[in-house]
């Protein structure tokens, strides 16, 4: 695993496709600047390694929602910080790992469940991002390892009958 310290260029660095034991393969392993502008660059990299458009859309949506959370709530907009993003695929699962060095924060415990039936004028602005991550993924989990938060998302790959 590469180091987790800022570089001078502050550009995202990507490492793709390496075997990782048994049937697992690391599709993407990158260090992403904790800035909103980095999300689209990351999305381009995800689109490149995940040819399934619908799956790539779901992954990019989850990454944006969680990275935005870290930038706004975890790091309070602090500059020059980085996150690590990994995509790992096996025969049946896609696993997304997101690691930050922010104070302890569990978005899945702390985000209120949005009320989706409210009228437009009563709709609160917020809470939808985490709601969508929970809807799109089969398993979501956040942990604090003493130096940062590690979020693990898992999606079961339902292979199409024609494949």
């Amino acid at each position, binding site marked *: 695993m590469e180091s987790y310290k800022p570089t001078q260029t502050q550009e995202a660095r990507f490492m793709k496709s390496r075997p990782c034991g048994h049937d697992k393969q690391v599709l993407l392993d990158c260090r992403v600047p904790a800035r909103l502008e980095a*999300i689209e660059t990351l999305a381009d990299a995800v689109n490149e390694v995940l040819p399934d458009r619908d799956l790539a859309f779901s992954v990019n949506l989850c990454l944006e929602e969680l990275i935005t959370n870290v930038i706004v709530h975890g790091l309070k907009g602090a500059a020059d910080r980085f996150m690590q993003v990994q995509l790992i695929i096996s025969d049946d699962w896609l696993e997304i790992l997101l690691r930050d060095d922010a104070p302890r924060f569990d978005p899945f415990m702390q985000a209120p469940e949005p009320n989706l039936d409210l009228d*437009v004028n009563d709709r609160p602005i917020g809470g939808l991002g985490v709601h969508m991550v929970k809807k799109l993924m089969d398993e979501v989990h956040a942990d604090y390892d003493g130096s940062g938060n590690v979020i693990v998302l898992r999606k079961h790959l339902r292979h199409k009958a024609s494949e």
Partner: protein
Amino acid sequence: MDLHTRVESHATVVTISGRLDAVTAPEYEKRIREMIDSGAVSFVVDFDQVDYISSAGLRALLLMTKLLNAKGGRVCLANVKGNVRSVFEMCGFCAVFRMENSVAEALAALA
């Protein structure tokens, strides 16, 4: 995101393309606020060329609707489809926004 506008007889048609995300949603909000401040109250937003939306994009649309409701205005969305539509559905936004399958139908709905 690119944003173009054209004024039809009874509504402003806003055509957006690309991504409506945490980076581009503030720009979208700014442009919409300027138009509403200039007196526009009826909008059609064409999603035909939008290939990605996140909760930041939904929030911008919600804000637009609230601003318009306060002024007695209206907005109708057109061509919300595919994965972008599923984001609306996941958040229960299909019931919040008026949506039509084409710009022509959206304009007719506002007439």
